[in-house]
Structure formats: C-alpha cells, structure tokens
C-alpha cells in the first residue's frame, strides 16, 4: 500500500506546476508505470481520488500509460518486449540481454487549461 505516497507525490508535482502557471488550471496529469514497478493501477487511482477529493484538484484526470518490459540483446542489439519472462532474443536467440525499460514510475506531462481568457489576452504579445 505505498500507492498513497505515490499519489501524494504526483499531486505535489502538479501543485508545483500550478505555482509556475498561476493563470492556468491543470486538467490532466500523465504517468508512466512500468510493469515491473510494483504499482497497482487500481489502488493508485483510488488513493489519487481520495487525496484529490475536496481540493482544487478534485477534477484532475490521471492518465496512466503502462510500459512493457523491454530488453536489448547483448549480441545483436535488437530491442524486444519480454513476455512471460522469456529472455530469448527473437533474432539471434541469444540469452544475454539487458533490461532497458519496464520499471518506470515517471510523470510525463501535465495538461493545463487557461482559466481566464482576459488574462491570456493581456499576456499575448502585441
């Protein structure tokens, strides 16, 4: 149950962006989770909603992208998706590969919507 701490970190990162863009309202936050990251998506969504509820981020949309485990073959350099822990390179059948993706836990973006059109007009260059 560390999803609560993860959810809190996401909201904190969004609040940091809000301070940088005070005239905008965050509507969506994008998250990348690797399948080896030990994060339960449903539990994370539950914690995220519980923490955001009743705050100015209550309507923030959490967009989660699950990343597959990928390896790069040490012999032929081919990159491939690992399924069912099968590490055999599909090209040269070598087993000497290294993991290059699959344990992500990253914030990829925040989508902001401009709240007050008058402010936007005032900020636009002449």
């Amino acid at each position, binding site marked *: 149950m560390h999803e609560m*701490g993860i959810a809190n970190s996401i909201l904190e990162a969004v609040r940091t962006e809000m301070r940088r863009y005070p005239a905008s309202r965050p509507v969506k936050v994008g998250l990348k989770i690797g399948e080896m990251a030990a994060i339960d998506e449903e539990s994370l969504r539950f914690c995220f909603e519980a923490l955001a509820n009743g705050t100015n981020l209550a309507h923030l949309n959490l967009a989660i992208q699950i990343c597959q485990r990928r390896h790069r073959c040490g012999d032929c350099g081919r990159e491939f998706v690992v399924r069912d822990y099968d590490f055999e390179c599909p090209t040269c059948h070598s087993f000497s590969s290294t993991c290059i993706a699959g344990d992500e*836990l990253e914030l990829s973006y*925040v989508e902001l919507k401009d709240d007050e059109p008058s402010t936007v007009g005032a900020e636009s260059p002449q």
Partner: protein
Amino acid sequence: MNRVPLEQKVLSENDRVAASLRDRFRQHDVFCLNLISSPGSGKTSLLERTLAALPKEARVAVLTGDIQTENDAVRLKRFGFPTKQITTGGTCHLDARMIDRHLADWDLSQLDILFIENVGNLVCPSSYDLGEAAKIVVLSVTEGEDKPLKYPSIFFKAELMIMNKTDLLPHVPFDPDLCEENARRIHPNMHCLRVSSLTGAGFSEWLQWLEQRRKSYLELQLETVVQP
C-alpha cells in the same frame, strides 16, 4: 490547452535524498545493504547470526525498520554494534528520508558496513531507493517456489537472493532448485545463496559474499576517485 512535459520520476524527492546518502556512503567507504523480504522470512535472525559471526571490532551498524515495536532493535543490540530501530508508524516501507534522519548522530567515518533491515513487505520497499550499494531479497523455504514470479519487482532489483530456513527443507514440499530457476527467470544474473539462520548452514558462503561484494564496492569506488 497547454501540455507541459515533466519527464521526472514520481519519487524524485526520495531519489534525491537517496543519491545524497549514496554519495555520503561512498565518501566514507560505507558498504550499505538493503534487506527486503516478506514478514517472517527471517531477516532479523539472519542478521543476528551474521552479527554473531563478525569480530567484535568490526565496524558494523544496523538500522531496522518495522511498523511498530522496538523488538528487532532489542534483539540486534545484544551483539554490541550500533543499532537503531526505525518505527514507521504504519508506513509499509522505509524511505530515504527516514534513513537520513536516523543516521544523523552516527559518524559514518567509523563504519564499514551498514545493514538496513526493511519493513517486512515484498512489494513497496522495492520502489524506494535508500542509497544502498545493493538490495538483497530474503525468502524462506516455507513460502513457495513461485514467490519470485508473484513479486517480480523486488527479484528484478535485488542482486542477491538468500533462501533462508533450509533446515526445514526435509519437512516442507519446497524445491529450492525450482525457486532459484524462477528467480533467474525474473533476473537472469541473480546470485543465490541457501542458508539456515538456525543451524548456520550456508553462512560461510554468505559471509564470503559479503566480504567479496564489499571489496568490489570499494574497488569501484577507487576507480571512480582515480578518474579525472
């Protein structure tokens, strides 16, 4: 609509503190290990027997994490090495800040090895870097050979798997070879050891691993320093 790219780790604050801990460990030649397992697989017993086997003048310290009670620290303090309990008060893992806080009054230049015994949990501790040189996953022979497949994240990140309670092997239907095979399906280069913290079987191999791995850590450190 305006999309602002973030490209940052969710746990960037933890990672920042962990990186500074790792720097401090390097600076003082402290070899730090993070022991992770499910509750009851024998991390504390493993440490007890390990501390008992070390010479009295060894410069070793232990941080032990639990949700509640000082019980583990009481058990481990008996060996005379600096030991501190971290009670998380409900949190299911240790994070880098807790380590930083509990190291505050220890002089790292007086230490060679720091053992961190994480909260018993095979899931959450795997997400939190504590600045350690290596993660060790402990599992016991009463837990089932498929544990690595059920909890892949920690087996993916640990460099050593210690199979504990091998004294029970005659009494339980557990295939240690299959368990190691499963661990290597997740992590092909996993180093595996079999020990019994009750009888001491396998401890010479474990202590040997400890010594050699610490040596390679210090050598790596030397290379880092030598480089311009």
